[in-house]
């Protein structure tokens, strides 16, 4: 077509050529002939594919960031929630597993898992005083956590409900007294772990 137009430039052909002007201009820098047209078509198609793919990649990156952030946030929350649950369970167990023969370690275990002010608030006396009290009464307590669930948990604080069964023996009641506790355990996040800040009976 282009060749025939070059060789036979009639009036009508001229006007058609003028109409084709923009297409003709784009094709000019490429080598002339069929190869040139093919390459022009190919490069225009490539451009469309390039634009399309770039757009798709950008949209996918945006979606990836969006979902990634959400999943990461939820996972952090879930990990904290599960840690709060396990910490509260273990703490409830430590709190009900106290033997006068190992009182010092048992009480230390409780102190390690809780905030500074907890022992005084919960036992009514400080750690060493409580140890002396346990030894004096020959107190023996064995506990079992029968169920525990998260009431609420955010990134820095949580409250866990714990159902505990405990049997307490002392010099006055050697046969032991069974207790069924309903505990609300409050926890605070301290740099890398949960610490218990409060244990209250849910009445």
């Amino acid at each position: 077509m282009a060749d025939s137009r070059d060789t036979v430039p009639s009036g009508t052909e001229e006007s058609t050529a003028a109409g084709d002007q923009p297409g003709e201009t784009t094709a000019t820098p490429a080598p002339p002939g069929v190869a040139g047209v093919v390459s022009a078509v190919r490069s225009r198609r490539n451009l469309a594919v390039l634009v399309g793919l770039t757009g798709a990649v950008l949209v996918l990156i945006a979606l990836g960031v969006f979902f990634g952030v959400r999943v990461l946030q939820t996972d952090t929350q879930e990990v904290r929630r599960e840690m709060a649950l396990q910490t509260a369970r273990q703490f409830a167990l430590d709190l009900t597993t106290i033997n006068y023969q190992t009182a010092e370690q048992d009480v230390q275990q409780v102190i390690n898992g809780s905030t500074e002010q907890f022992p005084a608030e919960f036992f009514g006396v400080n750690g060493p005083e409580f140890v002396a009290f346990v030894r004096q009464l020959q107190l023996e307590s064995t506990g079992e956590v029968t169920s525990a669930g998260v009431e609420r948990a955010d990134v820095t604080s949580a409250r866990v409900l714990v159902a505990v069964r405990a049997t307490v023996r002392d010099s006055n009641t050697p046969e032991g007294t069974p207790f069924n506790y309903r505990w609300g355990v409050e926890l605070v996040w301290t740099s890398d772990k949960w610490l218990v800040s409060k244990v209250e009976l849910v009445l």
Partner: protein
Amino acid sequence: MSASWTAARDLTVQAGGYSDARRPTRALLALGVVAVVLGIAVGALGWLDHRDSQVETARQAALQTAREQVVTVLSYDFGTIDQDLQRARAALTGEYLAEFTIQANYIIAPAAREQQITTTANVIAAAVVRADPAQVVVLLFVTQRTQNSQSDAVRLAAHRIQLTMARVGDRWLISELDRV
């Protein structure tokens, strides 16, 4: 001099033209691969996000239903015992439904009529033990107030109840009830 420069330029243009025609194709192919890999990654993340929100929805819906339905199951009045137990059964599913039906017919209903028992349950606190989209385990601290014809005193009982909630269609039903 001028001719050789032109020839050299033509060669360059030709060489350039040749590699230019291949380079975009290769670049497009690479971009396509990137898009596919990104697409798979986004799909996986989207699926994880969808599952997370399903778990969260399940947790909230099951907890709310458990709070309401444990009251339905544990409260009854000897005057309306049949309707009360029928309503309770509607909240249950699976093996626990069968177990409860037997208990209701042979123990709860006769005793309620004979001793004129009225009992009301109150949820004091509720928490989620574990949750997935189809099943949620809930721990409830329930206080039950019971009255009967034998005495004027109201008896108070502190229960610790673990409920397993199962999703049946778009509803949450109690599939297990354990006193812990």
